[in-house]
């Protein structure tokens, strides 16, 4: 916002003072409202096609070339569907829930930088803002599930609350490690802190032992937070029909989907920002076109994260409620706390090569121990005998 303001303030020298400000505010808003929903629409298409490829089939390809108009057709149809509100539902809450589901997801994009200096709002508490906002989405899930007066919806709502609240903790702690290393809560500063090395790659936090652990923790947390497979238990289709949005039809259902996907995309964006160097990449310092190259790198990384999401969805079974909670509290939480301590160690060790080895050893050992403890009671190797 500031960058745009500075850029265009000069052009409007003689005009009223509010005009450049208004434009500077309007452009990011239009960008967020225009570009990210388009990404959502095509994510659904890419997801359907990618799942198709995983399953040896084509996926949508009849509407336009390569099925490129499929999301439009879906959107049009969902817009014109009848809107059903169950007779016993709490009508106001039922109406409000999908709206609330979308708002936090959209707000999340406000702090995701896409090019040097180009972030919709450069908040100096950016990361804090993101977590504060993203937790609000659970409210929508619960409202939707509660207002529907459906037992499956209610079960889904309960699961959603339990899951999102639990995964918030390791996720925030994983982010704390990054904040400690970068020394700032601002997303732009976090990206800047990863600037090192020739091709702008070596400094990414994901290449540090603690950063890698943080990345994995954060990615898992983000997946759970946005209820994606294998953590899609709030809407587990094979168990509780469609979970909290069982009773939603037409555009309200589309809004729920929009909120879910936007949250997943925004979380992917934040993951990219915090661990994968944001917009950093070769060639971002070239004059004039550097900004575009940076945006390209950012969206490329974002796309990779989304594809990773889809890939996992196509291949992994779903975990169970108690296992999900156990995993959050027994594995992720200790790991994330240890990770914070390790970042401190990293910070105070002068020799970075030695520090690399030591921290990697500590984290690896901790992971092995935790995996043993958490899995020992359950998983066993079996051999089978044959009848004589």
């Amino acid at each position, binding site marked *: 916002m500031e960058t745009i303001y500075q850029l265009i303030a000069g052009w409007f020298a003689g005009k009223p003072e509010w005009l450049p400000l208004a434009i500077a505010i309007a452009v990011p808003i239009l960008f967020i409202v225009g570009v990210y929903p388009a990404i959502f629409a095509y994510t659904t298409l890419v997801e359907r096609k990618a*799942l198709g490829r995983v399953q040896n089939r084509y996926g949508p390809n009849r509407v336009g070339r390569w099925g490129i108009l499929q999301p439009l057709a879906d959107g049009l149809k969902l817009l014109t569907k009848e809107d059903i509100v169950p007779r016993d539902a709490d009508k106001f809450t039922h109406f409000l829930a999908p709206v609330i589901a979308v708002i936090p997801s959209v707000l999340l994009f406000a702090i995701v930088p896409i090019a040097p200096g180009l972030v919709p709002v450069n908040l100096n508490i950016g990361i804090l803002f993101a977590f504060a906002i993203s937790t609000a989405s659970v409210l929508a899930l619960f409202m939707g599930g509660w207002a529907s007066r459906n037992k499956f919806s209610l079960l889904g709502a309960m699961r959603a609350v339990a899951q999102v609240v639990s995964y918030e903790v390791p996720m925030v702690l994983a982010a704390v490690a990054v904040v400690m290393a970068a020394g700032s809560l601002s997303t732009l500063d976090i990206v800047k802190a990863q600037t090192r090395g020739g091709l702008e790659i070596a400094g990414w936090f994901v290449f540090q032992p603690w950063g890698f652990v943080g990345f994995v923790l954060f990615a898992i947390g983000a997946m759970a937070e946005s209820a994606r497979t294998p953590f*899609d238990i709030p809407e587990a289709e094979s168990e509780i029909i469609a979970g909290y949005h069982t009773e939603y039809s037409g555009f309200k259902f589309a809004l729920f989907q929009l909120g879910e996907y936007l949250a997943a995309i925004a979380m992917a964006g934040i993951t990219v920002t915090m661990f994968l160097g944001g917009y950093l990449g070769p060639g971002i310092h070239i004059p004039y076109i550097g900004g575009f190259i940076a945006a390209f790198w950012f969206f490329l990384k974002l796309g990779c994260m989304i594809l990773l999401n889809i890939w996992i969805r*196509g291949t992994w079974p779903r975990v*169970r*409620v*108690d296992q999900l909670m156990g995993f959050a509290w027994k594995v992720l939480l200790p790991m994330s706390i240890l990770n914070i301590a390790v970042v401190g160690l990293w910070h105070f060790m002068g020799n970075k090569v030695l520090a690399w080895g030591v921290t990697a050893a500590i984290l690896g050992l901790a992971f092995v121990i935790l995996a043993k403890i958490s899995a020992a009671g359950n998983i066993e190797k079996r051999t089978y*005998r044959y009848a004589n």
Partner: protein
Amino acid sequence: MIQQISPIPTGMIETQTIEVSIGPQHPSTHGVFRMDAVLDGETVVGLKPVMGYLHRNHEQLAERMTWLASIPYTDRLDYFNSMTNNWALCLSVEKLAGIKVPERAEYIRVIVSELTRILNHSCVIGFMLQDLGAWGTPLLYAFREREKILDLFESLSGARMMCNYMRFGGVRVDMTDAMVAQAKDIVAKFPRFLDEFEQLLSNNEVLLARCQKVGILPKELAINASISGPMARASGVDYDIRKVDKYGVYGRFDFRVPLGEVGDVYDRYYIRVLEMRESIKILNQALRDLPAGAFVAPEVKLRNFKIPPGDGYGRVEAPKGELGFYLVSDEGGKMPYRYHCRPPSFINLTTLEDMCLGHKVADVVIILGSVDIVLGEVDR
């Protein structure tokens, strides 16, 4: 003092159970099956199976038509495995009428039945993983393999699913050399698919954590509740009708019967994988030894077919368990006086409640998936 501040007595928090009707339209009830579940939070504290939503009066219809006319109806019992269903009825009728089946027909029957078993088991595993939430990938892989087997069935009988292939005293049409080559090709390629399938799934942590020690069925209960098929063998019951009765020519083949130890969902999953490998062994032997000769007993007159008065029970090892037919013939002998089908998946549901109690809702669907029911057979 410690006594007073120790955990809140359960009476203080008032909890309520909720009653949820899972089905008849539910993605993981494999058709129109219903479970009336009582839930305490996520935990199942009561569960009653309710069936009959696909009760198509197969038995009564069969009592109104000739013996032969019932064969196409048996296809629609367990609509995955029309071949073994046909065989069960033909075997029972042959037992009652004392018909001897030619060698070649017996071998062809073994070949198509074992192919059916492979088809059924791979699809069942696919469905089970679908219930686990694997978004269709294993299921669609299984269906890809199924199509290859169905191609063979189609060239053999003219229909994909409802083959209507067997006749009293043999099979309807002969298996040509080209079809034998096709079957050999399927059998040769199948182990690779199975390896791929296992690589993807058998050691997946989520699958192991979800399936192990869930829905345990003890051996004694399994026998007492008349559980049969892979489900009983997963509980360690050494009972395979192919070995016990040695019907057809099963006595000549070298194959083993895998047995589970624990009797949980994972065992039921893995026993099926192992059984598929044994089926491939049987198929290899049967295709190698397939003799020449008649494919149907020439002395059997299918037109105006009659059975002397009396009753009898015949059974085969269908992929889902013991499939039997209890037939009563009366004075005329042209039509069955009483025609009863002993469906394995119906009886395997007896212990569903015992297996599900105390588990979570998410486990109920995979336990049901591991029982392997087909509603056409449960309700007939």
